[in-house]
């Protein structure tokens, strides 16, 4: 009798067990809490009037401001010019960084010449280049794109090189023992093997490009989300600053989900349900 009682039920891993199991429902409930609780805290904090609205406008104020902004001004124009700057700067980075990173990750002489240099430059703050960029490129669109480019390019080169280096050697060697030439190995093995990691690198660096937007729009801009935020600061329109930041966050979230969707569509073999 006693033995039956002792073996009644195997212990289920607890809620806080390391990498423990969790149902989909629990996950989404917790994820929703993670969003709602800070929002509610924000609302309570501002509604109680403990903090002046100049420093912390409530969510309702921010929402209203976003609405009136969309009536009076042209936030869509601001948004689209910002999206344009980020995309062009980031695309320019990608177009140059992918072939360069591929070479660094594939050929040791190229790695020796370029990697230490890139490592050196990537630690330089992009903001510090603003005076130089203004001097060299001027104050029109090119300079804003250049700042975003400087902020993302050097990191991207190193990440692409690492993505290519992570391709297991046996995948390359298997092709070699089938008689593949160097060019064929790059085209038929290295690139397709690194592609999923490359898309992740593009997704992550796109996020960084957005973080450089406000900095880039410090440079004699008269449009853009970053510019709108800076202008709002000048007029103490804290609610508009909040609205601008939230719009940038929303755009980022949207782009991130787009990249993840593209990843699932392009590399179905990586997203198999087992």
């Amino acid at each position, binding site marked *: 009798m006693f033995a039956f009682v002792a073996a009644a039920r195997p212990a289920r891993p607890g809620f806080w067990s390391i990498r423990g199991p969790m149902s989909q429902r629990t996950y989404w409930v917790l994820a929703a809490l993670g969003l709602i609780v800070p929002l509610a805290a924000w609302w309570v904090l501002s509604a109680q009037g403990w903090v002046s609205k100049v420093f912390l406008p409530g969510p309702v104020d921010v929402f209203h401001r976003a609405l009136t902004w969309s009536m009076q001004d042209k936030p869509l124009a601001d948004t689209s010019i910002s999206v344009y700057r980020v995309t062009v700067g980031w695309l320019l980075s990608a177009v140059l960084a992918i072939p360069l990173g591929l070479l660094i990750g594939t050929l040791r002489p190229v790695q020796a010449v370029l990697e230490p240099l890139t490592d050196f430059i990537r630690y330089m703050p992009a903001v510090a280049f603003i005076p130089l960029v203004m001097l060299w490129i001027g104050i029109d669109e090119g300079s804003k794109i250049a700042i975003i480019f400087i902020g993302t390019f050097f990191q991207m080169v190193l990440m692409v090189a690492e993505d290519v280096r992570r391709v297991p050697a046996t995948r390359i060697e298997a092709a070699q*023992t089938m008689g593949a030439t160097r060019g064929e190995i790059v085209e038929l093995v290295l690139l397709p093997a690194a592609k999923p990691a490359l898309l992740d690198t593009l997704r992550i660096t796109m996020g960084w490009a957005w973080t450089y937007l406000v900095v880039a729009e410090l440079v004699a801009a008269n449009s853009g989300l970053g510019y709108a935020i800076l202008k709002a600061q000048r007029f103490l329109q804290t609610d508009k600053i909040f609205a601008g930041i939230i719009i940038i966050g929303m755009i980022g979230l949207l782009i991130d989900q787009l990249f993840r969707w593209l990843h699932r569509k392009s*590399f179905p073999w990586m997203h*198999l349900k087992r």
Partner: protein
Amino acid sequence: MKIRTRKLGKIFGAAPRTVTALEQIDLEVFDNEFVTLVGASGCGKSTLLRIIGGLDYHTSGDIAVSGKPVKGSGADRAMVFQHYSLYPWLNVIQNIKFCRRLKVNRRELTSADVEVASGRADALLNVMGLPNVADAWPNQLSGGMQQRVAIARALMPRPEVLLMDEPFGALDAQTREVMHDLILHVFNLERATIVFVTHDVEEAIYLGQRVVVMAPHPGRIDSVYDVPLPVRRTQDMKHTPAFLALKREIVGRIRETSGMKTDLEMLERLSGVEEREE
């Protein structure tokens, strides 16, 4: 003679910090022979295989395959690895046909040639027991199935030499037995020359017509044994006196040359100390 090495040596690193991986290797492998290389870790068996495959280079002596000195890898010497060699973005049949994307195999231009090639891919798919998974991705397959695909892909361009670097090392014992009989069956069909590296003595004897025992520090050939078993092997041969005697002999040689013996002596001394303390 398919493969011949004379006084082959390999030194890793630059002076003064060098490691002699291989020293004075004289190895001859005949046409259509199945030779297994066995030895303790650090004996250079994989390095020797990689030099034959042209993936590593030797630093002294000569090596020739089919009478031609080895200069880099080539389509005549295919290699099967233990891990991660399949292309996960290609399905099974695309992996097997991978060699057809390469320039070396573009000589065939007529539609008849293409038909022959896809006939061969289908035949390999059948021989390796894979017809039901032709459209599957490699990471949907078990380790054993993945190695079947890797072997089929290596055989596809009809290499003269098949080099296998512990191909079944990561598989469980039951799957490994199945793979042994499968590779022997393929060997009888294809009549390629196979050089097979393993650290499993039983595997080396069961598969090989000759077993080459290597010793470490520096990597060298210690002894070569002819396997006294019929060409057609069956699992129950593993329990015959001839098989067991050869296994005992080879395991003894590996222990003798690998420093394992001194470890055992140390263990005995340690246990002796404990007994005295009691």
